[in-house]
């Protein structure tokens, strides 16, 4: 099977009837089944306003009965990451993600952290949402605004989020961002039809984060971050097909992970992330481990985002 076929979209019209219904069932809608109260809630939930808002997306496009389910995963090869020092630019993964998603300032859904190495020197760690399979954020959400899709991606429905921010407290990777004010986005962001898979247009008072770009993958494209990396350090693929690619080469995922002693962040927490790391400090691209620092990320439309405020993290 070629890489192209692997990332092909599901056949049109094969979208299942309702993702939310299935989703809620799996989360144990027992609490809603309290007799007439349950019926009342059901009626209210079918109400027009909310149904229009959160559309039947919720990342189940690929959950077609009888078809193999994608299990999206990412491998970040830290041997190839020098924080974009060699190209003398801000980290290009972050930059492309911001531009692709209109991520409001100061959100860096994939952020390049500078970790200290035990023997001195630095290591650049690009960190997207870890797409946990035992996601602490999903567990604590009071309204199921953040949820796991059958493909294993954790998404947020910004039309349901009440802004309580308990998910931000629960996330052990600091990968959730809040729209503290009117989110600064360029005017063209308003043309986009809202979908939890790309979270645009952003909503004030709700939480956002990396959505793992399954919509791009289904259309046969790599996520913005993987495509933009000048050193092709980011692999994206499917655990089910056992394939991943950085846009230049295709690897057998399980073997690739095993042979390069891959690890996951805070493995001991048992969150089961879908993002894997191959240990390194940019040695693959000749990075001097004692040279830290990256260029500051830019949000190019800040001047064009009318009436919007920015804040710091």
């Amino acid at each position, binding site marked *: 099977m070629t890489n192209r076929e692997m990332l092909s979209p599901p056949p049109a019209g094969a979208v299942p009837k309702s993702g939310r219904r299935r989703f809620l069932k799996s*989360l*144990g809608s*027992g*609490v*809603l089944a309290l007799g007439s109260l349950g019926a009342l*809630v059901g009626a*209210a*939930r079918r109400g027009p306003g*909310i149904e229009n808002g959160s559309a039947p997306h919720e990342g189940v496009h690929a959950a077609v009965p009888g078809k193999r389910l994608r299990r999206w995963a990412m491998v970040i090869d830290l041997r190839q990451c020098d924080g974009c020092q060699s190209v003398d630019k801000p980290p290009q993964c972050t930059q492309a993600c911001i531009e692709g998603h209109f991520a409001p300032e100061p959100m860096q859904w994939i952020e390049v*952290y*500078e*970790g*200290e190495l035990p023997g001195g020197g630095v290591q650049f*760690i690009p*960190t997207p949402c870890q797409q946990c399979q035992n996601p*602490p954020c999903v*567990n*604590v*959400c*009071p*309204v*199921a*605004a953040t949820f796991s899709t059958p493909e294993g991606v954790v998404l947020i429905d910004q039309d*349901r*989020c*009440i*802004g*309580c*921010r*308990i998910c*931000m*407290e*629960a*996330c*052990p*990777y*600091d990968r*959730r*961002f*809040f*729209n*503290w*004010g*009117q989110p600064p986005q360029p005017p063209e962001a308003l043309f986009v039809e809202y979908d939890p898979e790309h979270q645009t247009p952003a909503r*004030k*008072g*709700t939480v956002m984060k990396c959505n793992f770009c399954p919509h791009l993958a289904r259309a046969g494209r790599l996520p913005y971050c993987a495509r933009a990396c000048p050193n092709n350090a980011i692999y994206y693929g499917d655990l089910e097909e056992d394939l991943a690619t950085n846009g230049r080469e295709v690897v057998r995922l399980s073997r690739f992970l095993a042979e390069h002693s891959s690890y996951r962040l805070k493995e001991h*927490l048992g*969150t089961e992330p879908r993002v894997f790391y191959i240990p390194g400090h940019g040695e693959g691209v000749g990075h001097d481990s004692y040279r830290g620092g990256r260029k500051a990320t830019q949000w190019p439309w800040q001047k064009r985002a009318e009436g919007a*405020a920015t*804040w*710091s*993290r």
Partner: protein
Amino acid sequence: MVALSRAGFTRAAGNVPPSWRERLEGRALRPLATGGPAYFSWLAFLLAVMGWAIYAYSTQVDQGLIVTGMRDRISWGLYIAGFVFFIGISHAGTLLSAILRATKARWQMSITRMAEFITVVALMVGALFPLIDLGRPDRLLHVFLYGRWQSPLLWDVFAITTYLTGSMLYLYLPLVPDFALCRDRLGPTAQRWQRWFFRAASLGWTGTVRQRQALERAMTVMMVVIIPVAVSVHTVVSWIFAMTLRDPVNSTVFGAFFVAGAIFSGIAAIIILMAVLRRLLHLEEYITETQFVNLGYLLGAFTLIMGYMNLSEYVTTGYKMEEGTRFHFQQLMVGPFAGLFWFYIIGGLVIPGLIILRPRTRTIKGIVTAAVLVLVAMWIERYLIVVTGFRVPLMPYQPADYLPTWVEWSVLGGAFALFAFLISVFGKLFPVISVWEVVEHRGPEPSRSKAPAEEAPHRMTGTMSEGGIP
């Protein structure tokens, strides 16, 4: 009827000098009839503070939570600390009064009403904070439409609504005979709405044996039920923190720690309210040093329990000193929060404990001082739990800082004003002392216990004597 007759003489002989009991009734009911300019200007002041808080909140609704000091890395602050604090205070009441009632402690009869009262008011105020903290208050209904019972926040919703309902009932039940007393005693001097209110609220109470049995049964049930509910409330409040993977709050002792802290701050709140009301309403005869000293002992015992809880928490984590723990200990004990932390430990636990330990300082003044220290320290403790818990970095980044803005301080001030306002207003709706219980436990005046039986039945007031309960 022989038993009943002893209670039925209240105003039988109007000319005799006021007895102990009539003095009590007079004292307890007087605030319901009066309300001078001082009272109304106090209310106006509180309303002004609340108005300012509403203005502050309106800017928050308009611009979003950007007007607060909270940001991604410290994403809860003063509001959630206020939530924990007020819900904590609410434990005072119901738990204290239920436990003391269950153990048949007599001395607390004159303060149970105030305790239960604090519970209801503190719950009402505390429950507002999570709503104020929401980024999308307009979607509050989603909690009911899409609520997930797996979320600790939903546990809070269940526990707090149960507790509020239960403690309102528990406040109301022993009020019924007192409402009847107001209905009968205030008579034509009362305003029209008051007469209507007392008639409706007393549910036709006349003090018959059946009514008293029913009341006694209902109160026993509520008393037993409310204790586990109260414990559950603060346990699940702690679990909004302890259910996460953040170092300082990822703790098994948190539930017990919060419950102990809640009762601790609650006792302090009762002592302060008791002192204030005693002075304002001239209740010196009924709230004596006994009540202060006994509550002081309780407060003293809880300084020890809290000390033990802190010890368990800090020694077990500090001994191992994992990376996050090390950061936490540094920020707390020698870093930016050291001043607050040591005030909490020394000013909130050690000094109040010593004040109560020494007989020379174990006076009303000393105990009130200790209570004020405890209440301030417990507020600080709540603040530290929220803010320092969030500040420990999760990834390699500079630790964030949090400074509450004027909006948060204003809303907090408004909450305290609301607390005082509700107490001031409700204090006009019913006696702050449970008259019938105090009477019952003191017993009728010896000189008057031979009142003729035939006078009694149709003149029953809303009081009863100890003889009436089989």
